[in-house]
């Protein structure tokens, strides 16, 4: 589904990714771990086309298409979704209007008719209830006045509504209490199918427990230095990143 080859990227002229290689197939959940500053968020932002990041070398193909040549909106329409580490507040644009615009933009790209208002309301209600987001959030501005936990739930809610093929969860678990983490992880798990895949960035073992990933990778100094099964995640949880840092230096 997604193939990353020799990806190099920089932020404000500073090289961050220095040759990332990664292959993700449909049906798989990959967890990406790594010490702060290793390039995890850069990788996710590059994949979704954040204009603040510059790709300096390498290729990414998504379902056979050259992902890096697509605009951020077209990447989303192709089925890539990112749950933001810090979801953005958009005062004045209600959640309902925001998602209506997103749903219909994606449908238009796929040659589908716009979804009717009543259907959208029904869909939003259904998905909202699944992640435990109150009705009154829908008429508020996007993330406006949402607590940290509500924002993360809101990301998973949007993911549920947009049903992406490939989801990137950028530290969606950070700042969540145990209960909220469970809701978010369960919400995510419900969306897993044999046709979808995900890249999950996390620091926590608890997330590994909930997600039961197929693969765990460790990113260090802009490169993937270890890949393994969930066991690798538990090893890191146990020993920290120091043993990897020591081996790499």
């Amino acid at each position, binding site marked *: 589904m997604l193939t990353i080859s020799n990806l190099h990227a920089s932020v404000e002229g500073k090289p961050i990714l220095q040759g990332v290689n990664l292959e993700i197939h449909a049906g798989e959940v990959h967890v990406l771990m790594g010490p702060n500053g290793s390039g995890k968020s850069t990788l996710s932002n590059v994949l*979704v*086309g*954040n*204009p*603040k990041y510059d790709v300096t070398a390498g290729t990414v193909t998504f379902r056979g298409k050259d992902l890096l040549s697509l*605009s*951020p*909106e077209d*990447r*989303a*329409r192709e089925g890539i*979704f*990112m749950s*933001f580490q810090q*979801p*953005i*507040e*958009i*005062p*004045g*644009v209600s959640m309902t*209007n*925001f*998602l209506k*615009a*997103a749903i219909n*933009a*994606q449908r238009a*790209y796929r040659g589908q008719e716009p979804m009717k208002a009543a259907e959208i309301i029904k869909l939003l209600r259904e998905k909202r209830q699944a992640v435990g987001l109150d009705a009154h959030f829908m008429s508020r*501005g*996007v993330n406006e006045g949402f607590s940290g936990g509500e924002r993360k739930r809101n990301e998973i809610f*949007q993911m549920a509504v*947009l049903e992406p093929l490939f989801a990137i969860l950028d530290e969606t678990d950070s700042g969540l209490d145990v209960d909220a983490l469970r809701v978010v992880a369960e919400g995510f798990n419900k969306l897993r199918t044999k046709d979808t895949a995900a890249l999950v960035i996390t620091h926590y073992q608890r997330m590994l427990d909930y997600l039961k990933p197929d693969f765990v990778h460790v990113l260090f100094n802009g490169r993937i230095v270890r890949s393994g099964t969930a066991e690798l995640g538990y090893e890191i949880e146990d020993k920290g990143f120091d043993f990897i840092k020591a081996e790499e230096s």
Partner: protein
Amino acid sequence: MNAALQQYIDLYEAHQAILCHAAPQVLNEARAKALQELKAHGLPTSRQERYKYTDVAALLEPDYGLNLQRLAGKQQVAACAVPGLKALTRYVAGDVMLPTSSQVPSTCEGIEVMSLHEAQQVYPDLLQQHYNRLASEQPDALTALNTLLVQDGLFIYVKRNASPALPLQIVNTAQTNTPAMHNRRLLILCEAHASATILLCDHCTTRSQTLTTEVSEISLGEGAQLSIYSVEETNSQCSRYHNIYATQQAESRLNLCDVTLRAGTSRTMANVSLKGEGAQTFMAGAIVASEAQHIDNNLLIAHHAPACQSEMLYKSVLNQESTAAFAGKVYVAPGAQQTISQQTSANLCVSPNAHAYTQPMLEIYADDVKCNHGATVGKLDESALFYMRQRGISEAEARLLLQHAFVSEVISHIDIPALRDRLTSLIDMRFRGDDDVHCAGCGLCGK
């Protein structure tokens, strides 16, 4: 004497007899003093604080004609329809009020709308007492010019305790085929404990240059509540000066909300005087400008009594080479304790060539007050744009949604749902670049 002004004085002096012949007595009585003032002080220049941002002389330069014959022309009385809005509607063509056959329904008892001409017959004492009283307290060249040349106007009278069930809608339309000057006058009396809503719509159906001077005098009695929503959707050939003078007695509330969707130059100057304890004023503006449009709001709210509250909330979205200016001043007189005031001016310069000038001012002579002000000039939030694009929304659509969201805060204060919905869709159309914005079902423009 400035040449631009001289032409209007010449015009007046040459046609004084015709002009006065058709006009109500009380209007004629005020002209001599206005003329004297204009001759003595001339037109304001940008060196004067309140005229810093708008070049009045340049805008008066074209040779505008006056409608001395009081012709309404072949005016089409077409609805300026706001879907779902039931209103008492009156039409003004240029500066001539069109006759109406529709009666005020019984649910709207207590509100009267008539020309100043009629008011001279029906309420001569009220007219004598209120016409040009507030407007002459602080001399202003544009008010003087209006007073000198005005031939008629509207008198809106909301009687004590009256609470008409429907809003009053005044549809102003400029339909002239030659450059024309319209001088409009509004006199609004809202007596004690009366409550009313007025919607002022401004349209222009030709591409001829028009200059409109408008002077509104508003008096609110004790406990009176008045909302005035003004929607401007003319075109780049229209210049409009609106000078508002308001006075409020105790516990009264005045909402003034301007929505400027399209105009050439539009300058609103407001002087609101809070005279009675506990009076409240809310002034808001939503401005969408593009091309070389110039929107200037110059506001003064004077707190003369204790425990009054006022708020100014102005938001502009500026595209292309447009300009918005906001100069808002809150004056707190000695003894006006427990004053609460808030001034917010927020501007979004979407284009690098757009300009926003913002100047909140406070002048406080009391010590127990809470006065806040904030002003911002910024561009679209790049991170919000990216967030939206990540969900599949195109960049153009995301920009539009953000611009719309920016002014929607002002629209949310409008308490007529049908008008709010209509404005929301008009603003949307405006941002989508529809060249002219029209109300649904409006036959005025033949479109």
